Protein backbone atom coordinates (compact mmCIF):
# COMPACT_ATOMS: atom_id res chain seq x y z
CA UNK A 1 0.00 0.00 0.00
CA UNK A 2 2.75 2.45 0.95
CA UNK A 3 4.80 1.57 -2.12
CA UNK A 4 1.77 2.01 -4.35
CA UNK A 5 0.95 5.37 -2.79
CA UNK A 6 4.54 6.52 -3.13
CA UNK A 7 4.46 5.55 -6.80
CA UNK A 8 1.14 7.35 -7.19
CA UNK A 9 2.74 10.43 -5.65
CA UNK A 10 5.77 10.27 -7.92
CA UNK A 11 3.54 9.88 -10.99
CA UNK A 12 1.48 12.91 -10.03
CA UNK A 13 4.68 14.75 -9.17
CA UNK A 14 6.12 14.06 -12.61
CA UNK A 15 3.15 15.86 -14.17
CA UNK A 16 3.55 18.84 -11.87
CA UNK A 17 7.29 18.92 -12.46
CA UNK A 18 6.91 19.00 -16.22
CA UNK A 19 4.49 21.92 -15.95
CA UNK A 20 6.64 23.72 -13.40
CA UNK A 21 9.70 23.53 -15.67
CA UNK A 22 7.79 25.02 -18.62
CA UNK A 23 6.48 27.66 -16.28
CA UNK A 24 9.91 28.36 -14.85
CA UNK A 25 11.45 28.96 -18.30
CA UNK A 26 9.19 31.93 -18.90
CA UNK A 27 9.53 33.17 -15.37
CA UNK A 28 13.29 33.17 -15.80
CA UNK A 29 13.15 35.49 -18.75
CA UNK A 30 10.16 37.73 -18.26
CA UNK A 31 9.67 37.45 -14.48
CA UNK A 32 5.99 36.66 -14.54
CA UNK A 33 3.86 33.59 -14.02
CA UNK A 34 2.59 32.52 -17.41
CA UNK A 35 -0.90 31.10 -16.99
CA UNK A 36 -1.36 30.89 -20.76
CA UNK A 37 0.78 27.76 -20.39
CA UNK A 38 -2.40 25.92 -19.35
CA UNK A 39 -4.17 26.99 -22.52
CA UNK A 40 -1.28 25.74 -24.63
CA UNK A 41 -1.41 22.41 -22.81
CA UNK A 42 -5.09 22.06 -23.65
CA UNK A 43 -4.68 22.89 -27.33
CA UNK A 44 -1.79 20.47 -27.80
CA UNK A 45 -3.76 17.69 -26.14
CA UNK A 46 -6.47 18.19 -28.76
CA UNK A 47 -3.95 18.47 -31.58
CA UNK A 48 -2.35 15.20 -30.53
CA UNK A 49 -5.73 13.55 -30.35
CA UNK A 50 -6.58 14.69 -33.85
CA UNK A 51 -3.45 13.17 -35.28
CA UNK A 52 -3.71 9.96 -33.28
CA UNK A 53 -7.42 9.29 -33.73
CA UNK A 54 -8.14 10.68 -37.20
CA UNK A 55 -4.89 9.98 -38.98
CA UNK A 56 -4.01 6.92 -36.94
CA UNK A 57 -0.44 7.97 -36.15
CA UNK A 58 1.50 6.01 -33.56
CA UNK A 59 2.84 7.25 -30.24
CA UNK A 60 6.15 8.91 -31.15
CA UNK A 61 5.06 10.81 -34.28
CA UNK A 62 2.00 12.01 -32.39
CA UNK A 63 4.18 13.22 -29.56
CA UNK A 64 6.36 15.05 -32.07
CA UNK A 65 3.30 16.80 -33.52
CA UNK A 66 2.04 17.79 -30.07
CA UNK A 67 5.44 19.20 -29.16
CA UNK A 68 5.72 21.15 -32.41
CA UNK A 69 2.19 22.56 -32.13
CA UNK A 70 2.89 23.55 -28.54
CA UNK A 71 6.09 25.34 -29.45
CA UNK A 72 4.56 27.28 -32.34
CA UNK A 73 1.44 28.15 -30.37
CA UNK A 74 3.51 29.46 -27.46
CA UNK A 75 5.42 31.70 -29.88
CA UNK A 76 2.13 32.98 -31.23
CA UNK A 77 0.94 33.62 -27.68
CA UNK A 78 4.07 35.64 -27.00
CA UNK A 79 3.55 37.64 -30.17
CA UNK A 80 -0.11 38.40 -29.51
CA UNK A 81 -0.16 38.62 -25.76
CA UNK A 82 3.19 39.86 -24.52
CA UNK A 83 5.33 41.49 -27.18
CA UNK A 84 3.64 44.88 -27.14
CA UNK A 85 3.65 44.92 -23.36
CA UNK A 86 7.34 44.14 -23.32
CA UNK A 87 8.18 46.81 -25.92
CA UNK A 88 6.36 49.32 -23.77
CA UNK A 89 8.06 48.13 -20.61
CA UNK A 90 4.67 47.48 -19.02
CA UNK A 91 4.55 46.24 -15.45
CA UNK A 92 4.35 42.58 -14.45
CA UNK A 93 0.65 43.00 -13.75
CA UNK A 94 -0.08 43.40 -17.47
CA UNK A 95 1.72 40.20 -18.40
CA UNK A 96 -0.16 38.45 -15.70
CA UNK A 97 -3.63 39.55 -16.78
CA UNK A 98 -2.78 38.99 -20.42
CA UNK A 99 -1.63 35.44 -19.70
CA UNK A 100 -4.71 34.59 -17.60
CA UNK A 101 -6.96 35.92 -20.36
CA UNK A 102 -5.16 34.04 -23.11
CA UNK A 103 -5.41 30.86 -21.06
CA UNK A 104 -9.14 31.42 -20.76
CA UNK A 105 -9.42 32.20 -24.48
CA UNK A 106 -7.62 29.04 -25.58
CA UNK A 107 -9.73 26.95 -23.23
CA UNK A 108 -12.95 28.36 -24.65
CA UNK A 109 -11.79 28.04 -28.24
CA UNK A 110 -11.33 24.35 -27.52
CA UNK A 111 -14.89 24.21 -26.15
CA UNK A 112 -16.03 25.41 -29.56
CA UNK A 113 -13.60 23.40 -31.65
CA UNK A 114 -14.10 20.18 -29.71
CA UNK A 115 -17.86 20.44 -29.82
CA UNK A 116 -20.05 18.90 -27.20
CA UNK A 117 -18.35 15.49 -26.98
CA UNK A 118 -15.62 14.14 -24.78
CA UNK A 119 -12.72 12.41 -26.42
CA UNK A 120 -10.23 9.78 -25.39
CA UNK A 121 -6.96 8.88 -27.05
CA UNK A 122 -6.84 5.49 -28.72
CA UNK A 123 -4.64 2.95 -26.94
CA UNK A 124 -1.20 3.71 -28.27
CA UNK A 125 1.07 2.00 -25.83
CA UNK A 126 1.60 -1.71 -25.97
CA UNK A 127 1.31 -2.10 -22.24
CA UNK A 128 -0.68 0.22 -20.00
CA UNK A 129 1.21 -0.51 -16.81
CA UNK A 130 4.16 -2.36 -15.34
CA UNK A 131 4.39 -4.11 -12.01
CA UNK A 132 7.05 -2.68 -9.69
CA UNK A 133 7.62 -4.09 -6.18
CA UNK A 134 4.09 -5.45 -6.11
CA UNK A 135 2.60 -2.12 -7.16
CA UNK A 136 1.59 -0.96 -10.60
CA UNK A 137 3.08 1.96 -12.53
CA UNK A 138 1.41 3.23 -15.65
CA UNK A 139 3.51 3.54 -18.76
CA UNK A 140 2.41 7.10 -19.42
CA UNK A 141 3.64 8.12 -16.00
CA UNK A 142 6.98 6.48 -16.68
CA UNK A 143 7.20 8.40 -19.94
CA UNK A 144 6.36 11.59 -18.07
CA UNK A 145 9.05 11.03 -15.49
CA UNK A 146 11.55 10.27 -18.23
CA UNK A 147 10.41 13.25 -20.26
CA UNK A 148 10.77 15.77 -17.46
CA UNK A 149 14.20 14.45 -16.56
CA UNK A 150 15.30 14.51 -20.18
CA UNK A 151 13.84 17.97 -20.71
CA UNK A 152 15.65 19.26 -17.65
CA UNK A 153 18.99 17.82 -18.66
CA UNK A 154 18.66 19.16 -22.19
CA UNK A 155 17.62 22.57 -20.95
CA UNK A 156 20.48 22.83 -18.51
CA UNK A 157 22.87 21.88 -21.25
CA UNK A 158 21.42 24.44 -23.65
CA UNK A 159 21.36 27.20 -21.06
CA UNK A 160 24.91 26.70 -19.84
CA UNK A 161 26.78 25.27 -22.81
CA UNK A 162 25.47 27.01 -25.92
CA UNK A 163 25.63 30.58 -27.20
CA UNK A 164 21.85 30.83 -27.35
CA UNK A 165 21.66 29.63 -23.79
CA UNK A 166 24.12 32.19 -22.56
CA UNK A 167 22.21 34.89 -24.41
CA UNK A 168 18.93 33.76 -22.85
CA UNK A 169 20.48 33.88 -19.42
CA UNK A 170 21.80 37.33 -20.22
CA UNK A 171 18.37 38.70 -21.10
CA UNK A 172 16.97 37.03 -18.04
CA UNK A 173 19.41 39.07 -15.97
CA UNK A 174 18.90 42.35 -17.82
CA UNK A 175 16.92 42.60 -21.04
CA UNK A 176 17.95 46.13 -22.00
CA UNK A 177 21.68 45.69 -21.51
CA UNK A 178 21.69 42.32 -23.22
CA UNK A 179 19.97 43.99 -26.17
CA UNK A 180 22.60 46.71 -26.24
CA UNK A 181 25.31 44.07 -26.17
CA UNK A 182 23.97 42.73 -29.46
CA UNK A 183 21.60 39.98 -28.35
CA UNK A 184 18.50 39.76 -30.50
CA UNK A 185 16.01 39.99 -27.67
CA UNK A 186 12.86 39.33 -29.72
CA UNK A 187 14.28 36.16 -31.24
CA UNK A 188 15.66 34.87 -27.97
CA UNK A 189 12.40 35.40 -26.13
CA UNK A 190 10.65 33.72 -29.04
CA UNK A 191 12.99 30.76 -28.65
CA UNK A 192 12.32 30.59 -24.92
CA UNK A 193 8.59 30.53 -25.53
CA UNK A 194 9.06 27.88 -28.19
CA UNK A 195 10.92 25.62 -25.78
CA UNK A 196 8.40 26.19 -23.01
CA UNK A 197 5.63 25.49 -25.51
CA UNK A 198 7.32 22.22 -26.49
CA UNK A 199 7.21 21.18 -22.86
CA UNK A 200 3.54 22.17 -22.75
CA UNK A 201 2.94 20.03 -25.83
CA UNK A 202 4.54 17.05 -24.15
CA UNK A 203 2.51 17.64 -20.99
CA UNK A 204 -0.69 18.14 -22.93
CA UNK A 205 -0.51 14.94 -24.89
CA UNK A 206 0.53 12.78 -21.94
CA UNK A 207 -2.19 14.33 -19.76
CA UNK A 208 -4.73 13.75 -22.50
CA UNK A 209 -3.72 10.10 -22.61
CA UNK A 210 -4.09 9.57 -18.88
CA UNK A 211 -7.13 11.73 -18.25
CA UNK A 212 -9.25 11.90 -21.40
CA UNK A 213 -9.70 15.11 -23.28
CA UNK A 214 -11.64 18.09 -22.02
CA UNK A 215 -11.19 21.85 -22.41
CA UNK A 216 -10.43 22.43 -18.73
CA UNK A 217 -7.47 20.05 -18.89
CA UNK A 218 -4.99 22.92 -18.74
CA UNK A 219 -6.21 24.21 -15.40
CA UNK A 220 -3.78 21.84 -13.74
CA UNK A 221 -1.25 24.55 -14.55
CA UNK A 222 -2.02 26.06 -11.16
CA UNK A 223 -0.49 23.03 -9.48
CA UNK A 224 2.58 23.56 -11.62
CA UNK A 225 2.69 27.14 -10.37
CA UNK A 226 2.55 26.01 -6.75
CA UNK A 227 5.27 23.47 -7.48
CA UNK A 228 7.40 26.17 -9.07
CA UNK A 229 7.02 28.39 -6.00
CA UNK A 230 7.81 25.56 -3.61
CA UNK A 231 10.87 24.71 -5.66
CA UNK A 232 11.96 28.32 -5.89
CA UNK A 233 10.63 30.44 -8.75
CA UNK A 234 13.06 30.61 -11.63
CA UNK A 235 15.11 27.58 -10.66
CA UNK A 236 14.58 24.70 -13.08
CA UNK A 237 16.03 22.04 -10.79
CA UNK A 238 13.90 23.46 -8.00
CA UNK A 239 10.82 23.16 -10.23
CA UNK A 240 11.36 19.44 -10.61
CA UNK A 241 11.98 18.92 -6.90
CA UNK A 242 8.97 21.12 -6.08
CA UNK A 243 6.75 19.17 -8.47
CA UNK A 244 7.70 15.79 -7.06
CA UNK A 245 7.42 17.10 -3.51
CA UNK A 246 3.94 18.53 -4.14
CA UNK A 247 2.77 15.32 -5.84
CA UNK A 248 3.93 13.11 -2.99
CA UNK A 249 2.56 15.40 -0.25
CA UNK A 250 -0.80 15.65 -2.02
CA UNK A 251 -1.11 11.90 -2.39
CA UNK A 252 -0.07 11.28 1.21
CA UNK A 253 -2.60 13.81 2.46
CA UNK A 254 -5.34 12.29 0.33
CA UNK A 255 -4.41 8.84 1.56
CA UNK A 256 -4.48 9.84 5.21
CA UNK A 257 -7.09 12.58 5.69
CA UNK A 258 -9.03 12.20 2.45
CA UNK A 259 -9.30 14.24 -0.71
CA UNK A 260 -11.88 16.58 0.84
CA UNK A 261 -9.64 18.01 3.53
CA UNK A 262 -6.42 17.82 1.50
CA UNK A 263 -6.77 21.30 -0.08
CA UNK A 264 -7.27 22.86 3.36
CA UNK A 265 -4.16 21.26 4.81
CA UNK A 266 -2.21 21.88 1.62
CA UNK A 267 -3.04 25.56 1.97
CA UNK A 268 -1.83 25.64 5.57
CA UNK A 269 1.37 23.85 4.58
CA UNK A 270 1.87 26.33 1.76
CA UNK A 271 1.33 29.28 4.13
CA UNK A 272 3.82 27.98 6.65
CA UNK A 273 6.26 27.10 3.90
CA UNK A 274 6.09 30.62 2.51
CA UNK A 275 6.49 32.07 5.98
CA UNK A 276 9.51 29.93 6.84
CA UNK A 277 11.29 29.52 3.52
CA UNK A 278 9.96 31.97 0.95
CA UNK A 279 12.95 31.45 -1.34
CA UNK A 280 11.78 27.91 -2.09
CA UNK A 281 13.58 24.61 -1.73
CA UNK A 282 16.26 25.48 -4.27
CA UNK A 283 16.99 28.60 -2.28
CA UNK A 284 17.72 30.92 -5.17
CA UNK A 285 15.59 33.99 -5.03
CA UNK A 286 14.88 34.95 -8.58
CA UNK A 287 16.12 38.43 -9.20
CA UNK A 288 13.38 40.95 -9.33
CA UNK A 289 13.83 43.84 -11.67
CA UNK A 290 13.13 47.30 -10.36
Amino acid sequence: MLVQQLINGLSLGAVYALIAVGFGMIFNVLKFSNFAHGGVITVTAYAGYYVAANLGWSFLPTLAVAILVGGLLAMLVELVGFRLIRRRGGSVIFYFVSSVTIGMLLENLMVIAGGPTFYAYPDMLAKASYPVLGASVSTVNLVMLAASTLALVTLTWVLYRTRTGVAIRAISADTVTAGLMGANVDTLIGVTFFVSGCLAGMTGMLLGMTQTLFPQLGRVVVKGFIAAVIGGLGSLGGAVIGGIFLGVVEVMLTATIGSGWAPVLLFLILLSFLAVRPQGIAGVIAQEKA
Partner: protein
Amino acid sequence: MGFYSSLTVFTGLTVIAVMGVFVLTGMAGLFSFGQAAFMAVGAYVAGLLAIRMGLGFVPAVLAGVVASLAAGLLVALPVMRLRRDYFALATFGFGEAIRALLNQSVGITGGAMGLFGIPVVTQPWMVVGAAVWSVWLVRTLKRSALGRDWQALKTDEIAAEAMGVPTYRRKVEAFLISCGLAGFAGALFGFYTSYVDPAMFGWFRSAEWIIILFFGGINSITGTVASALLLSALPEFLRFVAQWRVPLYCGIVIATINLRPRGMFGDWELSLSTPGEVLKGVRRRRGLAQP
Protein backbone atom coordinates in the same frame (compact mmCIF):
# COMPACT_ATOMS: atom_id res chain seq x y z
CA MET B 1 -37.76 40.70 -9.28
CA GLY B 2 -37.69 41.17 -13.02
CA PHE B 3 -34.91 40.48 -15.44
CA TYR B 4 -33.66 44.04 -15.26
CA SER B 5 -33.83 44.21 -11.50
CA SER B 6 -31.89 40.97 -11.17
CA LEU B 7 -29.39 42.32 -13.67
CA THR B 8 -29.19 45.50 -11.59
CA VAL B 9 -28.52 43.48 -8.44
CA PHE B 10 -25.83 41.28 -9.95
CA THR B 11 -24.20 44.27 -11.62
CA GLY B 12 -24.34 46.30 -8.41
CA LEU B 13 -22.76 43.48 -6.43
CA THR B 14 -20.01 43.24 -9.04
CA VAL B 15 -19.40 46.97 -8.69
CA ILE B 16 -18.99 46.60 -4.91
CA ALA B 17 -16.56 43.71 -5.19
CA VAL B 18 -14.65 45.31 -8.05
CA MET B 19 -14.23 48.47 -5.97
CA GLY B 20 -12.39 46.25 -3.50
CA VAL B 21 -10.21 44.91 -6.31
CA PHE B 22 -9.58 48.51 -7.38
CA VAL B 23 -8.12 49.31 -3.96
CA LEU B 24 -6.05 46.15 -3.86
CA THR B 25 -4.83 45.93 -7.44
CA GLY B 26 -5.43 49.32 -8.95
CA MET B 27 -4.06 51.32 -6.04
CA ALA B 28 -1.74 49.01 -4.08
CA GLY B 29 -0.65 46.85 -7.03
CA LEU B 30 -1.40 43.54 -5.35
CA PHE B 31 -3.07 40.54 -6.90
CA SER B 32 -5.62 38.28 -5.33
CA PHE B 33 -7.00 35.15 -6.93
CA GLY B 34 -9.18 34.44 -3.95
CA GLN B 35 -11.47 37.48 -3.74
CA ALA B 36 -14.49 35.36 -4.62
CA ALA B 37 -13.70 33.21 -1.58
CA PHE B 38 -14.08 36.25 0.67
CA MET B 39 -17.41 36.83 -1.00
CA ALA B 40 -18.25 33.25 -0.08
CA VAL B 41 -17.24 33.85 3.53
CA GLY B 42 -19.54 36.88 3.70
CA ALA B 43 -22.43 35.05 2.06
CA TYR B 44 -22.17 31.90 4.17
CA VAL B 45 -21.58 33.58 7.54
CA ALA B 46 -24.44 36.04 7.03
CA GLY B 47 -26.73 33.34 5.64
CA LEU B 48 -25.94 30.81 8.37
CA LEU B 49 -26.48 33.35 11.14
CA ALA B 50 -29.81 34.34 9.61
CA ILE B 51 -31.00 30.75 9.20
CA ARG B 52 -29.61 29.07 12.30
CA MET B 53 -29.75 31.91 14.82
CA GLY B 54 -32.47 34.07 13.36
CA LEU B 55 -30.20 37.08 13.24
CA GLY B 56 -31.67 40.12 11.49
CA PHE B 57 -30.56 41.37 8.09
CA VAL B 58 -28.33 44.23 9.22
CA PRO B 59 -26.44 42.40 12.00
CA ALA B 60 -26.06 39.33 9.77
CA VAL B 61 -24.56 41.39 6.96
CA LEU B 62 -22.23 43.10 9.43
CA ALA B 63 -21.15 39.74 10.81
CA GLY B 64 -20.47 38.54 7.27
CA VAL B 65 -18.23 41.53 6.66
CA VAL B 66 -16.39 41.03 9.96
CA ALA B 67 -15.84 37.34 9.17
CA SER B 68 -14.32 38.09 5.78
CA LEU B 69 -12.08 40.72 7.41
CA ALA B 70 -10.88 38.12 9.90
CA ALA B 71 -10.22 35.63 7.10
CA GLY B 72 -8.34 38.33 5.22
CA LEU B 73 -6.13 38.98 8.24
CA LEU B 74 -5.32 35.27 8.47
CA VAL B 75 -4.04 35.24 4.89
CA ALA B 76 -2.35 38.65 4.94
CA LEU B 77 -0.24 38.46 8.07
CA PRO B 78 2.14 35.66 7.05
CA VAL B 79 2.59 36.43 3.36
CA MET B 80 2.26 40.17 2.89
CA ARG B 81 5.98 40.71 3.45
CA LEU B 82 6.82 38.44 0.52
CA ARG B 83 6.93 38.84 -3.22
CA ARG B 84 3.66 39.73 -4.85
CA ASP B 85 3.52 36.42 -6.73
CA TYR B 86 3.52 34.60 -3.44
CA PHE B 87 0.71 36.71 -2.14
CA ALA B 88 -1.31 35.87 -5.28
CA LEU B 89 -0.54 32.21 -4.71
CA ALA B 90 -1.56 32.33 -1.06
CA THR B 91 -4.89 33.93 -1.94
CA PHE B 92 -5.45 31.28 -4.57
CA GLY B 93 -4.74 28.55 -2.03
CA PHE B 94 -7.09 30.25 0.37
CA GLY B 95 -9.85 30.24 -2.24
CA GLU B 96 -9.44 26.51 -2.83
CA ALA B 97 -9.26 25.81 0.88
CA ILE B 98 -12.48 27.72 1.55
CA ARG B 99 -14.29 25.81 -1.15
CA ALA B 100 -13.04 22.51 0.21
CA LEU B 101 -14.08 23.57 3.70
CA LEU B 102 -17.58 24.49 2.52
CA ASN B 103 -17.91 21.20 0.66
CA GLN B 104 -16.67 19.16 3.60
CA SER B 105 -18.69 20.68 6.43
CA VAL B 106 -21.91 19.16 5.17
CA GLY B 107 -23.58 19.39 8.59
CA ILE B 108 -23.14 23.16 8.79
CA THR B 109 -23.02 24.48 5.24
CA GLY B 110 -24.96 21.81 3.37
CA GLY B 111 -21.82 20.86 1.43
CA ALA B 112 -22.01 20.77 -2.35
CA MET B 113 -25.81 20.80 -2.21
CA GLY B 114 -25.54 24.37 -0.99
CA LEU B 115 -27.16 26.40 1.71
CA PHE B 116 -30.73 27.30 1.05
CA GLY B 117 -33.54 29.03 2.87
CA ILE B 118 -31.81 32.36 3.47
CA PRO B 119 -34.62 34.94 3.79
CA VAL B 120 -35.00 37.16 0.74
CA VAL B 121 -34.38 40.68 2.02
CA THR B 122 -32.04 42.41 -0.43
CA GLN B 123 -33.84 44.75 -2.79
CA PRO B 124 -32.37 46.26 -5.95
CA TRP B 125 -32.37 49.77 -4.46
CA MET B 126 -30.32 48.57 -1.48
CA VAL B 127 -27.69 47.14 -3.80
CA VAL B 128 -27.64 50.32 -5.87
CA GLY B 129 -27.25 52.31 -2.65
CA ALA B 130 -24.49 50.04 -1.40
CA ALA B 131 -22.69 50.24 -4.73
CA VAL B 132 -22.87 54.02 -4.74
CA TRP B 133 -21.61 54.07 -1.16
CA SER B 134 -18.67 51.80 -1.96
CA VAL B 135 -17.71 53.93 -4.94
CA TRP B 136 -17.84 57.00 -2.72
CA LEU B 137 -15.73 55.23 -0.08
CA VAL B 138 -13.03 54.23 -2.55
CA ARG B 139 -13.03 57.67 -4.13
CA THR B 140 -12.49 59.23 -0.70
CA LEU B 141 -9.71 56.74 0.03
CA LYS B 142 -8.02 57.46 -3.27
CA ARG B 143 -7.84 61.16 -2.47
CA SER B 144 -6.63 60.63 1.09
CA ALA B 145 -3.07 60.28 2.37
CA LEU B 146 -3.69 56.54 2.49
CA GLY B 147 -4.40 56.51 -1.24
CA ARG B 148 -1.17 58.37 -1.98
CA ASP B 149 0.79 55.88 0.14
CA TRP B 150 -0.72 53.01 -1.81
CA GLN B 151 0.13 54.53 -5.13
CA ALA B 152 3.65 55.22 -3.94
CA LEU B 153 4.24 51.65 -2.86
CA LYS B 154 2.70 50.33 -6.04
CA THR B 155 5.15 52.28 -8.18
CA ASP B 156 8.26 51.57 -6.11
CA GLU B 157 8.04 49.78 -2.84
CA ILE B 158 11.64 50.37 -1.76
CA ALA B 159 11.47 54.08 -2.46
CA ALA B 160 8.13 54.31 -0.64
CA GLU B 161 9.59 52.55 2.38
CA ALA B 162 12.53 54.95 2.32
CA MET B 163 10.14 57.89 2.27
CA GLY B 164 8.59 56.62 5.49
CA VAL B 165 5.54 54.79 4.14
CA PRO B 166 4.84 51.79 6.39
CA THR B 167 4.45 49.52 3.34
CA TYR B 168 3.61 46.29 5.15
CA ARG B 169 0.88 47.93 7.15
CA ARG B 170 -0.51 49.77 4.12
CA LYS B 171 -0.64 46.60 2.04
CA VAL B 172 -2.51 44.76 4.78
CA GLU B 173 -4.95 47.65 5.01
CA ALA B 174 -5.61 47.64 1.27
CA PHE B 175 -6.21 43.90 1.34
CA LEU B 176 -8.58 44.14 4.29
CA ILE B 177 -10.65 46.83 2.61
CA SER B 178 -11.00 44.67 -0.48
CA CYS B 179 -11.90 41.63 1.63
CA GLY B 180 -14.50 43.63 3.52
CA LEU B 181 -16.11 44.84 0.30
CA ALA B 182 -16.13 41.33 -1.18
CA GLY B 183 -17.70 39.99 2.01
CA PHE B 184 -20.28 42.77 1.94
CA ALA B 185 -21.22 41.92 -1.64
CA GLY B 186 -21.41 38.24 -0.65
CA ALA B 187 -23.76 38.87 2.27
CA LEU B 188 -26.10 40.95 0.11
CA PHE B 189 -25.91 38.25 -2.57
CA GLY B 190 -27.06 35.51 -0.18
CA PHE B 191 -29.99 37.58 0.99
CA TYR B 192 -31.02 38.10 -2.63
CA THR B 193 -30.79 34.62 -4.16
CA SER B 194 -31.68 32.86 -0.87
CA TYR B 195 -29.39 30.03 -2.01
CA VAL B 196 -25.61 29.79 -2.14
CA ASP B 197 -23.32 26.92 -3.03
CA PRO B 198 -19.52 26.60 -3.07
CA ALA B 199 -19.32 26.34 -6.87
CA MET B 200 -20.54 29.94 -7.18
CA PHE B 201 -17.29 31.30 -5.79
CA GLY B 202 -14.53 29.76 -7.90
CA TRP B 203 -11.36 31.53 -8.95
CA PHE B 204 -12.90 32.24 -12.32
CA ARG B 205 -15.03 34.90 -10.66
CA SER B 206 -11.95 36.46 -9.04
CA ALA B 207 -10.23 36.53 -12.41
CA GLU B 208 -13.27 38.15 -13.98
CA TRP B 209 -13.11 41.02 -11.50
CA ILE B 210 -9.47 41.63 -12.35
CA ILE B 211 -10.36 41.66 -16.04
CA ILE B 212 -13.08 44.22 -15.38
CA LEU B 213 -10.56 46.42 -13.57
CA PHE B 214 -8.05 46.25 -16.40
CA PHE B 215 -10.62 46.88 -19.06
CA GLY B 216 -11.73 50.10 -17.38
CA GLY B 217 -8.29 51.33 -16.43
CA ILE B 218 -6.42 50.51 -13.24
CA ASN B 219 -6.05 54.15 -12.27
CA SER B 220 -9.59 55.30 -12.87
CA ILE B 221 -12.55 54.67 -10.59
CA THR B 222 -14.84 56.03 -13.28
CA GLY B 223 -13.39 53.60 -15.78
CA THR B 224 -13.67 50.67 -13.38
CA VAL B 225 -17.31 51.41 -12.62
CA ALA B 226 -18.15 51.89 -16.28
CA SER B 227 -16.42 48.67 -17.21
CA ALA B 228 -18.16 46.80 -14.38
CA LEU B 229 -21.50 48.06 -15.68
CA LEU B 230 -20.62 47.23 -19.24
CA LEU B 231 -18.90 43.88 -18.79
CA SER B 232 -21.38 42.43 -16.33
CA ALA B 233 -24.33 43.51 -18.44
CA LEU B 234 -22.68 42.74 -21.78
CA PRO B 235 -22.70 38.94 -21.49
CA GLU B 236 -26.44 39.10 -20.86
CA PHE B 237 -26.97 40.86 -24.14
CA LEU B 238 -24.44 38.73 -25.95
CA ARG B 239 -26.38 35.55 -25.24
CA PHE B 240 -27.34 35.32 -28.89
CA VAL B 241 -23.76 34.56 -29.83
CA ALA B 242 -23.96 31.77 -27.24
CA GLN B 243 -20.66 29.93 -27.24
CA TRP B 244 -18.64 32.77 -28.75
CA ARG B 245 -19.45 34.91 -25.74
CA VAL B 246 -16.41 34.13 -23.59
CA PRO B 247 -13.86 34.15 -26.45
CA LEU B 248 -15.20 37.53 -27.53
CA TYR B 249 -14.88 38.81 -23.99
CA CYS B 250 -11.27 37.56 -23.81
CA GLY B 251 -10.47 39.11 -27.17
CA ILE B 252 -11.69 42.51 -26.00
CA VAL B 253 -9.53 42.31 -22.89
CA ILE B 254 -6.40 41.19 -24.73
CA ALA B 255 -6.83 43.99 -27.23
CA THR B 256 -7.31 46.51 -24.42
CA ILE B 257 -4.21 45.43 -22.52
CA ASN B 258 -2.05 45.44 -25.62
CA LEU B 259 -3.32 48.48 -27.42
CA ARG B 260 -4.70 50.65 -24.65
CA PRO B 261 -2.81 49.51 -21.56
CA ARG B 262 -4.19 52.19 -19.31
CA GLY B 263 -7.67 50.83 -19.91
CA MET B 264 -10.55 52.50 -21.68
CA PHE B 265 -10.49 55.47 -19.33
CA GLY B 266 -6.79 55.89 -18.56
CA ASP B 267 -6.37 58.17 -15.54
CA TRP B 268 -9.49 60.13 -16.31
CA GLU B 269 -11.99 60.66 -13.53
CA LEU B 270 -15.49 61.99 -13.82
CA SER B 271 -16.16 64.57 -11.15
CA LEU B 272 -18.95 66.94 -10.29
CA SER B 273 -17.00 69.78 -11.82
CA THR B 274 -16.55 67.95 -15.12
CA PRO B 275 -19.63 69.45 -16.82
CA GLY B 276 -18.40 72.91 -15.78
CA GLU B 277 -14.96 72.28 -17.25
CA VAL B 278 -16.42 71.03 -20.49
CA LEU B 279 -18.54 74.18 -20.73
CA LYS B 280 -15.53 76.35 -19.98
CA GLY B 281 -13.61 74.57 -22.70
CA VAL B 282 -16.38 75.19 -25.17
CA ARG B 283 -16.50 78.86 -24.25
CA ARG B 284 -12.76 79.16 -24.56
CA ARG B 285 -12.83 77.63 -28.01
CA ARG B 286 -15.58 79.95 -29.08
CA GLY B 287 -13.66 82.86 -27.61
CA LEU B 288 -10.64 81.94 -29.70
CA ALA B 289 -12.72 81.81 -32.82
CA GLN B 290 -13.84 85.40 -32.29
CA PRO B 291 -11.33 88.12 -32.99
